[in-house]
């Protein structure tokens, strides 16, 4: 009886999550321009229409570039940070740990506004172009990637047996070699998962990016929003389906190397 109730509740929740995805996917294949039920027929024309819309193509490549670079920066900062947090005891350690996770809980709008104000002030003080530049946008995206890397790498370090590192040193590996041959491979699940989630967060980020983009520099989520302001045809749905496929594919590939359910 309890089991039925539990399964029912789980199914309901799952349906609640999946229903919009299913509808969007369905919609992407409708033939008519104005979404209405039932569909008049099915076609792939909206997928073809994406390629004609420059803003989507440019937005996709900008978001991709941003996501990849922000993830690399996030790893370069987040992995050493997680190692320090997990291994050393120093004053302010807890505060630093919370600070690094903060971008996860601060609303994107707040994050965007504060960065915008900061960029304006910095531009004024330093007398150089900051606002709306690619680097400023990249800095913002790196900040939302870092917490994911820190969190997931810290999790993978939690049960780390440090005598394994001692064993490597005992066998002739100096600390440098020990790190690359033993420590890094052992925390790889956390690193891969952190990178994946960081990338997805960056790729899909809308609120913060709205404050940071400059003229001619439109990320994919913003391009979608702008398109929606004027038209509602299934092109949007087609773009969404492609995004779902990209992110879902990345998850599946990652899951082959690292069981995501183990690290999140």
């Amino acid at each position, binding site marked *: 009886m309890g089991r039925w109730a539990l399964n029912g509740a789980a199914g309901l929740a799952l349906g609640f999550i999946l229903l919009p995805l299913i509808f969007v996917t369905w919609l992407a294949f409708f033939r008519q321009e104005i979404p209405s039920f039932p569909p008049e027929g099915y076609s792939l024309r909206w997928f073809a229409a994406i390629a004609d819309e420059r803003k989507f193509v440019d937005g996709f490549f900008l978001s991709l570039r941003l996501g990849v670079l922000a993830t690399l920066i996030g790893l370069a900062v987040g992995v050493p940070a997680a190692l320090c947090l997990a291994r050393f005891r120093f004053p302010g350690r807890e505060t630093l740990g919370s600070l690094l996770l903060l971008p996860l809980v601060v609303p994107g709008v707040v994050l965007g506004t504060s960065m915008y104000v900061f960029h304006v002030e910095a531009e004024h003080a330093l007398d150089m172009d900051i606002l709306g530049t690619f680097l400023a946008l990249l800095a913002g995206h790196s900040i939302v990637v870092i917490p994911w890397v820190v969190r997931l790498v810290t999790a993978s370090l939690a049960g780390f*047996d440090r005598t394994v590192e*001692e*064993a*490597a*040193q*005992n*066998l*002739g590996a100096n600390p440098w*070699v020990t790190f690359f041959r033993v420590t890094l491979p*052992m925390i790889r699940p956390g690193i891969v998962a952190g990178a994946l989630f960081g990338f997805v967060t960056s790729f899909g980020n809308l609120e913060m990016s709205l404050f940071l983009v400059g003229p001619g520099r439109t990320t994919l989520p913003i391009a979608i929003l702008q398109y929606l302001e004027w038209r509602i045809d299934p092109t949007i749905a087609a773009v969404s389906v492609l995004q779902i496929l990209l992110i879902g594919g990345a998850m599946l590939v990652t899951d082959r190397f690292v069981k995501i359910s183990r690290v999140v």
Partner: protein
Amino acid sequence: MARLLLDHVSKRYGDFHAVRDVTLEVADGEFVVLLGPSGCGKTTTLRMIAGFITPTAGSVHLGESDVTTLPPWKRNAGLVFQSYALFPHLSVAQNVAFGLEMRRLGKADIAARVAEALRLVRLEHLAGRLPRQLSGGQQQRVALARALAIRPDILLLDEPLSNLDAKLRQEVRVEIRELQRQLGLTTVMVTHDQEEALTMADRLVVMNEGAVRQIGSQRDLYERPADRFVAGFVGRGTFLEGRIEGPGRFRTEGGLVVRCADGAAGSAVLALRPERLEIAAMPLAGVDNSLPGKVEFVSYLGAASDVHVRLSPSDRVIVQIANRGDGFTPEIGATVHIGWSAAAARLFPAGSVGHDA
């Protein structure tokens, strides 16, 4: 293989003396066991030999060279960790090859030496497995093979058997010892298990509170313990507190007068071995001491029984009786007589640090 010398080695953490002035020489091919309760400094000593801890004072010599300040990766010591510390992401063969790759050996050499090391521990057939696919005993043998593959100057074993079940432990003891002899490995092992220490060692080092209490063979430690701690830690001891009154006269706290070997007058402890005490229903003739007492407790242990006998309000001894099926087994409350010869007892000055087994 090489000889090891610890020369007046100490390690202090602030006011805490983890290891105090340890001097020890281990000959080429010798198997020495550091034995002591937890916190006695034996593991710290082992880690100083491996190079994970730098001594506060004294020096460590391996073969002809002084390695006191050499980092672990520059020493040629093979350490088997208590937790095995296998590389979880590498196969058995890759684990064993690790130290050889660090020594930049050629591929063919590495393959040959990995195969040789795995053959020594009879794990050739599991070379491709990951550590988590192995049983505890197999993991332990991989750890041993990994340490042996580098042909270390010295083999260090840190409680290597404590994670194995009792039956396997007995087998592995013998296996390790045979391998060590066959390869002529200079070996230092750390354990808190006296039976393990006694069965495996050429020589034992008994430690307590950071200091060496006695170094010697099994027989030395058992027959001639240097102090009350050793008497209680190696084998079993049962003790009578009191003072030496005159030549060959010991008066217990409870006022019993006992004949003993000569010793300096003053407070002292008389140490006896439970298995060397005689017990009978009648006073014993032909021994130096025969004292009456009342049986307070009996525990039947199969091969033997322990009988706790109260000799006076403040004196109690434990007598172990071998169970041959025909002997005298007293019951609780019975009056018995306990006897021993003066030569069977050892005298230690009182206050020599306690910790009775």
